[in-house]
């Protein structure tokens, strides 16, 4: 196993432990993100196991992407309740995931690049909305004392990489085709899951209380 893969799982494990350690003091959106982290950790371990033992693990991501989108969107919705369309988008995304898995990117054979791209674009939109509301409601708290700021920074960097890969239709490549791309991808993954650690340890401030 490559050291980058080990580091990737270690950071995820750290994020889960940070969440367990701080669970009682986490606010509702961060609790949702903690459960996403637990699910991600388990899902990645299962994907790793299947990859080593059976080769093809793409169907894992056909389920992982809608669940990740749902939980991320719900966490942001808990902060931005005035944007109810975020909730409706979860339902639409599930329909899209099912149709995509059956017709466009069969879930047993193809990676769900469409889902990943759509998820990245939509969650980037939620991040912009979150920052917009944060700037509208500035108070005495510091920038990094909002857990969703950590998550937004991590997700934004992660999404930038995903959208970049998607633009060149490289998302459905099972293995990254070059070392450089692979390293960039690993880096953005580390940033994303480290941001979860930050979110679980930081002050639990909300834009709207």
């Amino acid at each position: 196993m490559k050291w980058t893969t080990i580091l990737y799982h270690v950071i995820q494990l750290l994020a889960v432990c940070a969440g367990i350690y701080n669970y009682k003091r986490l606010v509702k959106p961060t609790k949702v993100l903690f459960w996403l982290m637990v699910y991600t950790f388990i899902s990645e371990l299962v994907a790793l196991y299947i990859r080593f033992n059976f080769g093809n693990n793409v169907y894992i991501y056909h389920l992982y992407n809608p669940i990740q989108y749902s939980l991320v969107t719900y966490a942001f919705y808990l902060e931005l309740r005035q944007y109810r369309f975020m909730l409706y988008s979860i339902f639409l995304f599930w329909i899209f995931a099912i149709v995509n898995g059956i017709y466009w990117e069969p879930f047993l054979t193809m990676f769900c690049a469409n889902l990943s791209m759509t998820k990245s674009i939509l969650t980037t939109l939620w991040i912009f909305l979150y920052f917009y509301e944060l700037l509208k409601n500035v108070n005495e708290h510091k920038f990094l004392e909002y857990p969703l700021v950590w998550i937004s920074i991590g997700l934004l960097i992660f999404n930038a990489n995903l959208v970049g890969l998607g633009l060149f239709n490289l998302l459905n490549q099972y293995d990254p085709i070059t070392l450089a791309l692979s390293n960039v991808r690993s880096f953005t993954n580390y940033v994303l899951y480290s941001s979860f650690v930050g979110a679980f340890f930081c002050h639990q401030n909300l834009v709207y209380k």
Partner: protein
Amino acid sequence: MNSIDDRTLLALMAICFLLLMSVFFIIIIVGLFKKRQSEHRQEKITLQHQYQQEILQAQLEIQNQTLQQIGRELHDNIGQLLSVMSINLDILEEDVSDLKTRSQIIDTSKILQQTIADVRSLSKSLDGDFAKDFGLVDSLSHDLRRIRATGKYQTEILMEGEPYRLDGQKEFVLFRIVQEILTNILKHAEAKTIKVTLHYTPAQFSLTVQDDGKGFDNEAVLGRKMENAGAGLRNIQRRTEMVGGTYIIETARGQGTKIEIQLPIVL
């Protein structure tokens, strides 16, 4: 370089560009956040200042109304009763033939006249509108005369520079500040002389109240715990700030006290 390499290179460039954009976006957001936070703090300070000003204004208005009410009562009720007593004494004086009794009545009548004059003087001093209507100098002169009339103090009012009228509200607040200082002198200073100086320049007005009393340890007074601290100095400070002024205290034990209030003149 084959086609896969080109595609990979382009993808790498696109990803790097998007990553840089993300970092740039985050930096912009942090900058905007700090700017908004600084504006927010400034707004909060302004609001707090306004709130304190409003509380102080309300306090002054309530105090003024109460003092005016007491002044009116003294003038209209007590003053009137004393006047009736004076008339009755005059009638009694005419009716009494015994010289000794008549002399006593005349003495009592004189004391009564003095009491009526004191009550009138006090009622004017309690009326804040008096300062607004007749000006700071006349009001202060009136108060100092009243203190001098007790026979315990020498008082003096001096004017330097070309005198001018301040805004009515400011004159009223300054009048109340000086009253507070005078009350402190009468209560604590054990002074013999009180000197008030009004210094007029085009850019600044300053008012100094000086006594030759026992003075005090200013640091110790300011450092006292809340239960032991008097409201006098704090009131003077807050009221001075309310009219946009600053105040300086020069005092030491056995060396008297000098309080100077400086007010910038905004044209």
